[in-house]
């Protein structure tokens, strides 16, 4: 790998950060997300955490959270993080599909990528855009995790040292969880003509492909392996875990991302710009 690869990767990912944090369109999306997150934090997350605390105090046999299938929330020492974990595992993969849908497609259709590939390799472009989108998501995840920490400290400031390891675990886990979704969108974006097409394909892959594979695997169990390749395969198992246990499944998104990025790079190298 040539030294300019990393320099180009850095420049391209910085440009993507600028697109998200310093352009009108980017700022508008961020403000929308901030408002959306504010309401999640203020209502469902805060109320659920309060309910959980009340349940813990009552020590009753019946739990509302067990009833609705979110019993694992109770394993987290700080209830806010338990609720945040459940919310984030649904929200961030979906956000990733939207946020990462237009990594290269509209620029390719407009011809903008031609100006760029005259000056850097397609590898730098593909991985640079992917890195940029991943950094943006990592920042958003960190911001939401920190806002949850603020909510915890608002309730009880002495929980800071107890909350810190959970904050770190959740942040790392969520970044890992969105990794294969971003890689899938990078591959789809290199293939299709618009962000909308990429999103539609992602939803089809995410929902139907898993169902189809399960159907076939019923008759031929060897095919079960292919379910492993669908991004988010580990999410339902992950939701049942808490604390550092959540990293037990880290190999799944890492492996999925490696396979999807290899496929995306293959498409990008062959794509007409």
């Amino acid at each position, binding site marked *: 790998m040539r030294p*300019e690869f990393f320099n180009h990767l850095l*420049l391209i990912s910085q440009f993507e950060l*600028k697109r998200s944090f310093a*352009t009108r369109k980017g700022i508008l999306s961020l403000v929308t997300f901030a408002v959306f997150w504010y309401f999640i934090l203020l209502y469902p997350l805060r109320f659920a955490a309060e309910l959980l605390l009340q349940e813990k105090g009552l020590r009753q046999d019946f739990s509302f959270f067990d009833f609705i299938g979110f019993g694992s929330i109770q394993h987290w020492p700080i209830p806010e993080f338990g609720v945040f974990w459940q919310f984030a595992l649904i929200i961030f993969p979906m956000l990733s599909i939207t946020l990462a849908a237009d990594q290269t497609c509209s620029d390719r259709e407009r011809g903008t990528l*031609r*100006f760029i590939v*005259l000056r*850097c390799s*397609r590898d730098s472009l593909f991985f640079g855009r992917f890195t940029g989108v991943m950094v943006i998501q990592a920042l958003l995840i960190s911001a939401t995790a920190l806002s949850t920490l603020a909510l915890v400290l608002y309730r009880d400031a002495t929980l800071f040292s107890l909350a810190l390891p959970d904050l770190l675990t959740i942040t790392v886990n969520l970044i890992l969880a969105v990794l294969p979704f971003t890689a899938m969108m990078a591959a789809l974006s290199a293939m299709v003509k618009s962000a909308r097409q990429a999103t539609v394909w992602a939803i089809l892959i995410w929902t139907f492909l898993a169902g189809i594979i399960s159907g076939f695997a019923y008759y031929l169990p060897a095919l079960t392996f292919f379910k492993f390749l669908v991004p988010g395969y580990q999410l339902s198992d992950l939701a049942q875990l808490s604390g550092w246990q959540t990293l037990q499944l880290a190999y799944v998104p890492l492996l999925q991302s490696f396979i999807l990025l290899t496929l995306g790079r293959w498409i990008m190298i062959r794509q007409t710009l």
Partner: protein
Amino acid sequence: MKSPIIHCQQLNHAYSGKVALSDVNFELVPGEPIGLVGPNGAGKTTLLSILSGFLRPTSGTVRLFGHPPGAAQLIGKVSALPQDAKLDPSFTVIEQLVFYARLQGLVKQQAIFEANRVLEEFSLKEAAHEKPLVLSHGMAKRVAIAQALIGKPELILLDEPTAGLDPVNVRTIRAIIAEQSSATTFIISSHDLAELDRLCRQVLLLENGIMQAEKIGINDQLAATRFITLQMETCPALEVIAKLQALKGVLQVTNPQKNEFIVAYDPDLQPHMDLQLMQCINTHHWQYRQLSHGKTLEEKLFFRDVHPT
């Protein structure tokens, strides 16, 4: 002998089975601007896209400065104006040009200087902080050409650089190409043959994806048969042909379009054919508009079957 900057061997490309380039072989050495002409659908944009690394050929070999298109060694050395490519609408012109310059390896200050330099060359300083969507077609085209000049590359591929531009901007672009052609080799694809006639000493002709074997030289001073193109004001064509045909040394007179005559002559028999023609025009009280040596590029390219008898 200069080493070739472009080497194409048995280059083929097909779009879903439809042949766009067929067995294209050629070599170009650095120097004066080179024209690339051909009718619509001849494969000009396909060829330039392959040379720029935007498109992978179906088969064949392409080398630019000894490297395949898109190779890291070509960054900063080869640039292009892609046809119909637009800048990112989210960023200002200067932000994007600085970004491109930085990708070419310039540090931030150099990149800002270089981006401003190319914009200034095209009188685009006032558009530097605008977003591409507010630019007129002509301005956007000039910005797209300006980006190709960043870092003074050795080879620039221009696909239809003057299409849609007004005469003043066409003149600016022609002047910039002429000025930079001592250090940079330009390959210009265009339908504007008069423009290529002015700029290029050599022209490549593509027809139906096939590169014509001979490169057409603009300078034919050493040829055994020479030509003079005569543009007249309204005149009796048949009489003009008859009178010119009778002049000493004239081999053939053709009238390819209204009021335009091409005189083929033998320079050994009459080295001062231009003077003889002027005398003939004067004698018959005809009015002429322009007399130029050689044939127009259009005649050379598309009416090559007209030979003197």
